[in-house]
C-alpha cells in the first residue's frame, strides 16, 4: 500500500540556515499524525512543504501519488490538501458562510445554492450554523478557527494539515477547537497536526513524530512515545514540557 503523503529526503533552507535535513515521512489514509518539537525545529516548515506554501531545495513530496511541484497541477493538489493556520486567515470581508463556500464555488465549480448548502452543513458540524452570516471580525478566535476548519473541509480534501491551530487562541477557547478536531479524527479524516497540546496528542494521535533542529528524531504510537521515549533528545524535550 502506498502512503497518502509520501515525503523523501526533504531539504529546505532559508539562506544559510537549513530548516529541514533529509526528512522522510509517510502518512497513510485515515491516519492521524501529530508532529511535536521545540520552536524552530522545522515542524511548521515541514507541513507547509506538503502543499508547497514553502518551496524546498531537495527531496520530493507526493500526495496520493501526485508529485507536488510548482506549475499547472499545483492548484489541483492544493485542493486535495486542506490547511488550517495558526492565525485562522479567514477572509475578513466575507461572512463565515461565504468563507466556507468559496472553495467549492470557485475551485469545484459547484452551483451557488449547492455550495452554500454544503457550507451551512459544515458550519453546523463545527457548531456554528447560527453564526453563518457573521463576519470573521464578529466571531471569537475559537469560532474563527472552527470556521477555518469548515472551510478546509468544504473541499473534501484527502488530508487536513493543521499548523499550530490553537497557538493563537485564548486558553478558554482551545478546548472547543480541539473537540472539533477530535471528532474529525474519529470519522477517519487523515490529519497531520503540528501542536503543543500534548494531552490532545496522547488522546487522538495514531502516531507522534518528534522533530528537532530540522530532523525527525523519533516516531511512535502515543502510548509508547510518551511512556517510553527511546531517544535522549525526546526524553529531554518531554521532561521539559511535562514537568509542570
Amino acid at each position, binding site marked *: 500500500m502506498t502512503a497518502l503523503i509520501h515525503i523523501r529526503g526533504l531539504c529546505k533552507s532559508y539562506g544559510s540556515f537549513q530548516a529541514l535535513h533529509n526528512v522522510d515521512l509517510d502518512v497513510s489514509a485515515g491516519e492521524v499524525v501529530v508532529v511535536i518539537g521545540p520552536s524552530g525545529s522545522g515542524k511548521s516548515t515541514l507541513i507547509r512543504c506538503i502543499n508547497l506554501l514553502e518551496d524546498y531545495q531537495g527531496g520530493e513530496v507526493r500526495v496520493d501519488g501526485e508529485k507536488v511541484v510548482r506549475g499547472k497541477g499545483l*492548484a489541483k493538489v492544493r485542493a486535495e490538501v486542506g490547511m488550517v493556520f495558526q492565525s485562522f*486567515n479567514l477572509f475578513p470581508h466575507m461572512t463565515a458562510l461565504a468563507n466556507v463556500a*468559496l*472553495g467549492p464555488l*470557485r475551485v469545484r465549480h459547484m452551483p451557488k445554492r449547492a455550495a452554500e448548502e454544503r457550507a451551512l452543513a459544515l458550519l453546523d458540524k463545527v457548531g456554528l450554523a447560527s453564526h453563518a452570516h457573521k463576519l470573521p471580525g464578529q466571531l471569537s478566535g475559537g469560532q474563527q478557527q472552527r470556521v477555518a476548519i469548515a472551510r478546509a473541509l468544504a473541499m473534501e480534501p484527502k488530508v487536513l494539515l493543521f499548523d499550530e491551530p490553537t497557538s493563537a487562541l485564548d486558553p478558554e477557547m482551545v478546548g472547543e477547537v480541539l473537540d472539533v478536531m477530535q471528532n474529525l479524527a474519529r470519522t477517519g479524516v487523515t490529519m497531520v497536526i503540528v501542536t503543543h497540546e500534548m494531552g490532545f496528542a496522547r488522546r487522538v494521535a495514531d502516531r507522534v513524530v518528534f522533530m528537532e533542529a530540522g530532523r525527525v528524531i523519533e516516531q511512535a504510537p502515543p502510548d509508547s512515545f510518551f511512556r517510553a521515549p527511546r531517544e535522549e533528545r525526546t526524553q529531554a524535550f518531554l521532561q521539559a514540557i511535562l514537568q509542570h
Partner: protein
Amino acid sequence: MDLLNTFFNWPVFRDALPLLLQGLWTTVLLGAVSILLGFVGGLLLALLRLYGPAWLRTLTRIYIDVFRSIPLLVLLVLVYYALPFVGLRLTSFAAATAALSLVSCAYTAEILRAGIEAIPRGQFEAAGAIGLGFFSTMRDVVLPQALRIVVPPLTSNCINVLKDTALASVVAMPDLLKQATQAQALAANPTPLIGAAALYLLLLLPLVRLVGYFEARHRAATR
C-alpha cells in the same frame, strides 16, 4: 455696485449659463471616461508590476515612472499637436482622454499596488491552500480588501483627474473652462469665469469632503 456688475452680473450669467452647463457636461464626461480608463489600465499595470515576468515588471515600472513625471500639459500638447505629424490626428476629446488616462493609470497603478501589498501574506496562503487560482485569488480575496484600503487615495486621484480636465481647453476642447472664457469674450464681462469657478467648486467640494469622510472612517476602522 460696480464690483457687483463686473463680477456677478446676473443677466450676463443667465445668458452664459446654457453654455457653461454644456461645458460642465463635457468636463464631467471627459473626467469620467478618463477615470474609468485610468482604473482599468491602472489595475492591469499594478498586476503586471507585481506578478508579471521580470522584463514586463521592469517595463511597467518605467511606464509608471515616466507618466508620473511628465507634466500633463506637455503630454496633452504632444498628443494633440505632435502626433498629427506622424499621421495620427485625434479629436480634442480623444486627445484629452488619452493624455488624462495615460497619466491617471500610472497613479492608479501605484495606489493599487500599495493596496495589494498591504494584504497580509496569510490571505494569499489561505486562498492558495483551498486551491484558488491567481484570478480567483485576486477577484474574490485580495482586490476586495485592497480596494477598501485605497478608497481615499483613489478618490483623491479622481479629484485630480477632474481638475486636470481644465487643461483640455488648451486643445480647443469645449469644456467648462473653455466655454467660460468664450462667454467672457462674448459678453466682455468676467462673470462667466466666476460662474465656471463656482461650478468647479460645486463638482469638486463634495468629493474632497468625501475623501475626508473615507479617511476618518478608515482611521476609525483600523483603530
